[in-house]
C-alpha cells in the first residue's frame, strides 16, 4: 500500500514528467488518466516482480545442491504467520489497485450530458463511416491511401509520415468534447486510437457511447483491433484534431450527403 501511495502522490503532482514505460501519455484527458493508472500499476508490478523474481533466483542459487553428499535439509513444512502475511499483503495491494481502477474507470466511462459535438461512427467489413451533424458523411472502404480529405490541405496539421493517416479521417475540434456513438453494421470490430489509450468494440446490436477531449491539434493513427475477417489487417482510420475554427470551416464547406446505406455499399465494394 505504501508503494502505491508513494507512487500515486508524485504522480498526481508531477504529471507529464514521468517516464512512459513504452506507453502513450494519452492525447486526451481520459487517455492521460489511463496513462497514470498504467504508470502506477507498472511501478507496483516492477516492485512485486522484482521482489518475487529476486527471491526465486536467490533461493535457486543460494540453496543449490553443491555436492552429492550434501546434508539433508530440515524438513519443515508450515509457518502460519508467514503464510498469513503473504495472503493479507497481496489482498491489500489488490484492493488499492482496485480502488484506483474504479476511480479511473468511472472517469473514462462517464459520458458528458452536453457534448460540443456528436459523431456517429459505423464500422463495417471493411472500413469506417463517420456521420456528422447536418448530414456530412466521411466514409472509406479498406484502403491504404491517405485520407482523400487531407488535413494538410485544410491548413490542419501535417500528415507525416503518410502511414499515420490511412483510411478515413475522423475530424474533431481540438479542446472540445466530442461524443462518439459507435455501432457496427455487421460483425464485431474494435475502435482503437493508441495515442488516446482507448479502445471499444463496435458490435451489432449494441450502441456504445464515449467521449474524447483531444488536448492539442494533431493527427493520430488508429486501426480496427478486433479481428473481423479477411481484410482486418487493413482496416485503418485516423483522428484529426483541428483548431475549432478550422473544424467548423471544414464542416460547413463539406457537401451534405444523405447517409449511405452501408449494407448495399459494403456488398458492392466486395464485388
Amino acid at each position, binding site marked *: 500500500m505504501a508503494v502505491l501511495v508513494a507512487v500515486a502522490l508524485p504522480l498526481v503532482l508531477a504529471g507529464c514528467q514521468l517516464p512512459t514505460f513504452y506507453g502513450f501519455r494519452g492525447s486526451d484527458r481520459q487517455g492521460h488518466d489511463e496513462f497514470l493508472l498504467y504508470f502506477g500499476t507498472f511501478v507496483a508490478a516492477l516492485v512485486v516482480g522484482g521482489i518475487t523474481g529476486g527471491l526465486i533466483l536467490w533461493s535457486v542459487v543460494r540453496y543449490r545442491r553443491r555436492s552429492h553428499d550434501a546434508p539433508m*535439509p530440515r524438513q519443515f513444512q508450515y509457518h502460519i504467520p508467514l503464510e498469513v502475511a503473504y495472503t493479507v499483503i497481496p489482498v491489500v495491494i489488490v484492493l488499492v489497485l482496485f480502488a484506483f481502477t474504479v476511480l479511473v474507470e468511472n472517469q473514462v466511462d462517464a459520458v458528458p450530458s452536453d457534448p460540443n459535438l456528436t459523431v456517429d461512427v459505423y464500422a463495417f467489413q471493411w472500413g469506417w463511416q463517420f456521420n456528422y451533424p447536418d448530414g456530412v458523411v466521411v466514409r472509406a472502404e479498406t484502403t491504404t491511401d491517405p485520407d482523400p480529405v487531407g488535413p494538410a490541405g485544410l491548413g490542419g496539421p501535417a500528415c507525416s509520415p503518410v502511414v499515420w493517416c490511412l483510411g478515413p479521417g475522423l475530424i474533431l475540434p481540438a479542446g472540445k468534447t466530442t461524443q462518439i456513438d459507435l455501432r457496427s453494421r455487421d460483425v464485431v470490430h474494435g475502435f482503437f486510437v493508441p495515442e488516446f489509450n482507448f479502445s471499444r468494440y463496435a458490435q451489432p446490436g449494441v450502441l456504445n457511447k464515449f467521449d474524447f477531449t483531444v488536448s492539442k491539434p494533431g493527427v493520430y493513427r488508429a486501426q480496427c483491433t478486433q479481428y473481423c475477417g479477411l481484410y482486418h489487417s487493413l482496416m485503418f482510420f485516423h483522428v484529426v484534431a483541428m483548431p475549432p475554427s478550422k473544424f467548423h470551416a471544414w464542416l460547413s464547406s463539406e457537401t451534405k450527403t444523405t447517409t449511405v446505406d452501408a449494407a448495399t455499399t459494403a456488398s458492392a465494394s466486395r464485388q
Partner: protein
Amino acid sequence: MTVLAQRPVAVEHPEHHEGPTGILKWLTSTDHKVIGMNYIVTSLVMFFFAGIMALIMRAQLTSPSGAVVSLQQYNELFTMHGSLMLYLFAGPFAFGGLANYIVPLQVGAPDMAFPRLNALSYWLFLSGSITMMLSFMVAGGAAAFGWVAYAPLSEATFSPGSGPDLWILALVLTGFSAIFTGVNLITTIFYLRAPGMTMFRMPLFTWNMLVTAMLILIAFPVLTAAMVLLWCDRHFGTHIYTVQGGGVPVLYQNLFWFFGHPEVYILALPYFGIVTDVIPVMSRKPLFGYKGMVFATMAIAALSTGVWAHHMFTTGVVLLPFFSLLSLLIAVPTGIKFFNWIGTMWRGSITLNTPMLFCIGFLLAFLMGGLTGVMLASPPIDFVTHDTYFVVAHFHQVLMGTAVFAGFAGFYFWYPKFFGRMLSDRLGKLHFWFLFIGFWVTFMPQYKLGLMGMPRRVATYQAGLGWQNLNIASTVGAFIIGFSFVFFLVNLWVSWRKPVPAGDNPWDAHALEWFATSPPVHHNFTRLPPIRSERPVWDFHHPDALTIAHGENGHGKLAGTAVPAGQD
C-alpha cells in the same frame, strides 16, 4: 472379460497379464497407462503442427508487407494455431495424458474408475483432432475466425463453407472427450484411493487434477452448448447470435468466455500441479504450506469461474467492477502459490537437473505473465492494450510458462516412470536453455509492440511505424524456440537407441507412483508402503527425515508411531 483387481498387501505377487499385443493392444486397451500415453503422443503431434504454424506466421511478420502467405492463409493459420494449441495440445496433454497416467498411480489405484469410458474419451479426442485437421483439406479452407469464433463473424454469412463446420464439430467431439475424462478423474479420486490416502494426503498434482476436473464439468458443457447453438444458426436458420432475427451477438461472447476463462485455468492448474510435485522432490524437502496450496488451488478455480467477462471489458456491456475485482483477486492465491514454491526451495538442497530447470523457467515465465495479467485485469489498462500484441505476449507467457515449461518439466520428470529409462540430462539442459532464451526474445518485444498499438491477428502492418525491428527480433526468438525442440527429439532418439535404466525411483521422489515399477505393471501395484503423510514413498525410504510439524524444532515423528486417528 472382466477382471477383479486385488488390493495388494505388502507381499510380492506380480499379476500375470495376458492381453493382446501390437496394434490390437493399442486399439483395445483400457489400461490408463496405455491411454495416457496415447493422449501424450497425440497431443505432442498437435503441438508440433501448431508450432510450425506459429513459425510460418512469425516469418510472415518479418516484413511489413508479409509475402510468405496470403491474408486468408494467415487468418486460417492463427485460427488453427490457437485451436490446436488450446483444444488439442495444452488441455489434453495435461488432463488426458499426464493425469490419466499419473493420477491413478498417485492415489494407489489399479486403474481409472471407468476404463472403457476412458478409452472412449481418447477415441473421441483423436476423432476431434482428425476432424479439425481435415478442415485444411476441404474447399474454402480451414476456419478463419480466430480460436474464439466470435459470432456473428462465425455465422454462415461471414464464414461459409465446411471448414468452420468441421471446426465446430471438432470442438463438440473433444468437448465430450474432456467431460468424460473429468467425470472419470473425479470418480477415481473419490473412490479408488488407497487406505490412509485421505484427501489431505493426496499429492498436489492429484489435487490440481481434481479441481481441474471440476472446472471441466463447469466449463465444457457450456462450450458444447454454444457450439450447438452456433450450428443451429449456421444450418437451421435460427438467429440466436444475429441481430437480424432478434438474437443477441454478445450472448455468444458470454457463453464462450464462461467456458473460455475456466478453460485458461483448466490449462494452467494441472501444470501448477506438476511444478508443485517436482520442486519439493528436487529440493529434498516437503512442500511448504501444503494446505495453503490446496486452498489456493481451489480459490483460483472458484474465482476463475467468475471472471469470464474480463475478456469483454471493451464491449461496453459488462459489469466492469465485478469482473475487475474478481480478476484482480486471482492474483492473491497465485501469489500464495509463488511464495509456497519459494518456501519449498528455501533452505533446501536443490538439484538443478532438467525437470527442475524447466520448473524455474516456468516460475519466471509465469511471474511475468501473471504480473501483466494483473495489469490487464484493470479495465482502464485493458482499454489501452486490448487486442494488441501486449495481450498476445501476456497469454503466450502464461500459456508457454505452463503448458510448455511446466509441461515438459513433467515430461522429463515422469519419463523414467513411463519407460523405465532415463533421458539425457545434458540434452535436456540444452533444450531448456534454447527454449528459455528463445522465449524471452520472442515475447518481450511483443509487449512493446502492443503498447505501440500493433493489433493482434494482423497479417501485414505499415512500414515506417518502427514495428519491423521488434517483429524481426520476435521472429528470431520464435525460431530459437523451434530449434530447441530438436534437442528434445534427439533426446528421445538417444534414449530409445541407448537406454539408460532408470530404476523405480530415480529422483528419490515422494508420491506413490515412484513405488510402482518403471513402467508400472498391469493394475499398477504389487505392494504399497504405509501412507502416513502426503509423501509416503519418501517416508518409506527416509524414516529418519520425516516432516517437522509447525512449532517443532527437532526431528519428525517416526512413521507408524502416534498416527492421528479418525478422519483427516
